[in-house]
């Protein structure tokens, strides 16, 4: 671990300014991913700016019906919040499906969104990885890629994004509030994450010095009927093989609206827009769910060890929608 200077930020603007003027600086919040990477040598900042004590730790209802979640709100507080549980159950469920109780007590909303891939080669500095060291090659492409992407990958990188929270937020069409060197801006979460293309070192569209300050949840009544289903190798405390976040609005057996996002299948949370289009106006039947799932996954390009993810993603989506629509009956 390289030596670094530590500074505790007293306000967000000063934190952004400090990081902006230091090319080797990084924000530190809960630390559960960054400190991991410091030890592994994956991250080598020379200045850490601690933003965990900034007053960004509240959950509030906005006048227009939206809900604002401060970036420093801990995962456990967000998951337990009564408003969140009532209006966005999939969000609470996604958080509770991730990590462990003692990690969720540390990890923050902003940090969760910016956690980096769990690709074993990314985490191992003795092996080539384009995300960690651009141009060095992708070890996963021909290596151990059981957990890797089936959609939207490139020759440069086949990693997947590990956040459960981000999958739920993607289905919800949350907006991310960012304070950057040039001021505040709003980024729809669907535009926050990138596909790897030929720049896999960049997970998001954020630039150096950009600080996530809040996440805004839309007023979305159908989100009250939502779920997060995570399939993993152990019953708890494991990253997803595949996950599905879904919300559905069914009336008289017909799907009026639906939101779907997949986790564990791509470099970013995968909004299943094609499946959503196919399902709107359709009867809420197993056949319709399966047809939509297969259409969404038709472009899948599995690797040597992850072909199982294609049928798994499809059947997990079908099961999730089945559960939601049966509940509604």
């Amino acid at each position, binding site marked *: 671990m390289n*030596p670094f200077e530590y500074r505790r930020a007293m306000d967000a603007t000063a934190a952004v300014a400090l990081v902006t003027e230091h090319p080797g600086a990084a924000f530190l919040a*809960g630390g*559960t991913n960054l400190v*991991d990477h410091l030890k592994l040598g994956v991250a080598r900042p020379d200045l850490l700016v601690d933003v*965990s004590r900034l007053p960004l730790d509240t959950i509030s209802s906005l006048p227009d019906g939206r809900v604002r979640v401060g970036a420093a709100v801990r995962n*456990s507080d967000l998951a*337990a919040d009564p408003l969140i549980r009532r209006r966005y159950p999939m969000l609470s469920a996604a958080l509770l499906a991730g990590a462990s109780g*003692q990690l969720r007590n*540390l990890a923050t909303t902003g940090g969760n969104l910016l956690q980096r891939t769990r690709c074993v080669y990314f985490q191992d500095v003795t092996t080539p990885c384009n995300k960690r060291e651009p141009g060095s090659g992708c070890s996963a492409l021909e290596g151990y890629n059981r957990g890797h992407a089936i959609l939207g990958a490139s020759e440069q990188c086949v990693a997947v994004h590990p956040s459960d929270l981000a999958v739920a937020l993607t289905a919800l069409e949350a907006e991310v509030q960012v304070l950057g060197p040039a001021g505040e801006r709003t980024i729809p979460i669907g535009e926050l994450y990138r596909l790897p293309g030929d720049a896999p070192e960049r997970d998001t569209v954020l630039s150096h010095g950009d600080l996530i300050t809040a996440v805004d949840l839309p007023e979305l009544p159908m989100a009250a009927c939502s779920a997060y289903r995570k399939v993993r190798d152990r019953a708890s405390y494991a990253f997803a093989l595949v996950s599905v976040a879904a919300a559905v609005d069914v009336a008289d057996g017909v799907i009026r609206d639906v939101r779907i996002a997949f986790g564990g299948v791509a470099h970013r949370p995968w909004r299943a827009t094609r499946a959503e289009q196919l399902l709107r106006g359709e009867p809420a039947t197993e056949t319709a769910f399966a047809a939509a799932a297969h259409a969404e996954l038709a472009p899948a390009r599995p690797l040597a060890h992850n072909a199982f993810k294609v049928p798994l993603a499809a059947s997990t989506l079908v099961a999730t929608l089945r559960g939601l629509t049966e509940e509604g009956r």
Partner: protein
Amino acid sequence: MDESITLHVDGRKRSLTVDTRTTLLDALRERLGVTAPKKGCDHGQCGSCTVLLDGRRATTCLTLAVAHDGAEVVTADGLAEGDSLHPVQRAFLDHDGLQCGYCTPGQVCSAVGMLAEAAAGWPSHVTRDGAGRVELTDEEIRERMSGNLCRCGAYPNIVAAIREVAR
């Protein structure tokens, strides 16, 4: 680079200078001689280093000591008052909820923190949303304790111990 910090550990005020790179776990173990929290993986993947940090259960291996200046830390050692054990510790003995003992202090702290979380109505992955009250079924206990790995396989006895305290 060094920074001066103060920690309140098991009721004692401890001031020290730490390398900014020092984790809370290493500060406790190597600098303060507080070895109840254990290092099992050093990457937040086993839970052996769990303490109560400002009242909540937290892993200490993925958090920098310098970021917790002023924090209150309670370890498994501090949960007991001398030879008078915390009820969770007593229950672990009654149910043989340990073998090698290395994960045990983390299990104990996690259990204490978890019981408070459940009492506060926090849901878990397996909670069927009843909005508020949490009944600590065995399934709930198992899910909530899954951040503490035990290679000896004391899980059934750990669950039995916590069930008894929760009752």
